[in-house]
């Protein structure tokens, strides 16, 4: 599969929402270890709203789906992650021309732009023990796949793996940001909660794409 329709993206994002909602306890615990323990609640709140939105709407272009998801997260979640994960889906879509399909190059562009905007607004960069430590390597992997001409499934699997590795590496980072900041050395050994969420998001996307790789609807609508 080289391209996904807007409706595919919509279905994929519903799967992402389901997976985040199912991970609430895990995310709560991750945030409790070195944060304030509300990350699971917030993500569940946001992605429950996303689920409702996507179930009730249809979309013609990919950017509307992603921006809709982002807007909904920003509006419904609150918290740092409301904006951060909202921007993850919204910022990349803003200012890009609407496209009726998602390809690896478009995905790479989207998430790269989102990453920049998250850094710009939040002031954090890679190594600060935030979700950027998962997002950065995922985006780099997407970029490499884009240049190599990989399939969507291959590209997103690579991104998910890179996100997971980045999350693992975040265990060895001393938090310089957010509520874990003052823990100092004591934040060692724990991954960043937002990085865990980022990995779950990319993993759920990769799995949806893999599972729906040869799906007839996809190929039928995908012929551009």
């Amino acid at each position, binding site marked *: 599969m080289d391209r996904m329709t807007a409706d595919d993206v919509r279905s994929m994002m519903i799967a992402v929402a389901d997976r985040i909602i199912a991970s609430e306890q895990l995310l*709560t615990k991750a945030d*409790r270890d070195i*944060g*304030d*323990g*509300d990350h699971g*609640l*917030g993500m569940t*709140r946001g992605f429950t709203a996303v689920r409702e939105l996507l179930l009730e709407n249809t979309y013609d272009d990919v950017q509307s789906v992603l921006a809709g998801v982002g807007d909904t997260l*920003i*509006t*419904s*979640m*609150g*918290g*740092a*992650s*409301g*904006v*951060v994960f909202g921007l993850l889906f919204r910022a990349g879509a803003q200012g890009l021309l609407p496209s009726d399909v998602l390809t690896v190059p478009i995905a790479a562009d989207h998430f790269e732009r989102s990453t920049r905007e998250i850094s710009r*607004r*939040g002031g*954090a960069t890679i190594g600060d023990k935030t979700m950027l430590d998962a997002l950065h390597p995922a985006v780099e992997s997407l970029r490499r796949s884009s240049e190599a001409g990989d399939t969507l499934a291959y590209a997103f699997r690579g991104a998910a793996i890179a996100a997971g590795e980045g999350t693992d590496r975040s265990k060895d980072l001393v938090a310089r*940001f*957010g*509520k*874990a*900041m*003052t*823990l*100092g050395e*004591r934040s060692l050994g724990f991954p960043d909660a937002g990085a865990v969420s980022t990995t779950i998001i990319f993993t759920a996307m990769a799995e949806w794409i893999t599972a729906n790789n040869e799906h007839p609807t996809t190929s039928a609508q995908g012929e551009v």
Partner: protein
Amino acid sequence: MRKFINEPRQVARETLEGFLAVYGDRFTQVPGSLAVAKRIPADKVAIVSGGGSGHEPVWLEYIGPGFADAVCQGDIFAAPAPRSIVRAAKAVERGRGILFVYGNYSGDRLNFDLAAEELQAEGHEVLTVRVADDVAAAPPERANDRRGIAGGFFVSKIAGAASEVGLDLKSVQELATLAADRTRSMGVASAGGTIPGTEEPTFVLPDGKMEIGMGMHGEAGVRRADMATADETVDQMVRLIMGDRSLSPDEKACVLVNGLGATTRAELLIIARRTARVLDQAGIRIHDLQVGDFATSQEMHGFSISVFGLTPELQKLYDAPGRTSFFSGANRH
């Protein structure tokens, strides 16, 4: 579940409904958000505060004459979303501009900044003051990274009073910033609270230990220490606070001894007694001493001390009338 709540996810909303059940004569809900606005805001700079809920009376009850004009709650420990903040601000904006006053947390900054941009895009003037009073959160050279804790009370008091006397947005912001710059706080806790709907406390300390510099969400502080007496603990905290910003000889101070939730009133008064004593001994003139639950973290067991160094102008504003559900004026003069 040992809390007296209903559906955990409805706690913030029902808390706000409860607030209105009690104070509804004076305030009104802003439709489509967990925000409350004064019924008849005067023609003045609009002070808008907000942040995650779960810290009551922060920020929900920082509203009133001489305090905020609108306050906007997020879910528990989560900053409010930009749309809610925008609605709250619009409910009280009267053409003189909007001042945001909130705690310096990543989440609050991100959400309030988005809200500010949206309001500015619609032609409103918006300025911001972030409270970053917690000396335990970062060293002085990274003071901008510090989080906001109970000292936000003083910033709110000054912002509200400055706006009430009719100053323009820039001046109100400058005075509130001055108040923020002259406020230092430090917290300590020996047991954590629990977020409604989760079963475990936000942190667990080994028996007989306390965290010095504890943040309002259970974030770690400067160090974990053996539980000491109230007097010893106060002495240490005051030392750390004054070490960060010492008061000049002619400077008067307002002091807040704040309970984090489960701390008994007796403990707070014992702590206030010692705080007043060590400051007196250090030659510092205490203009006012407030004691109570001004900024909590669920039923966390602990307290914070905040010291706010006055200038003559700030003192006038501090002494100006102001009232919230938990404050009705200075205790000493």
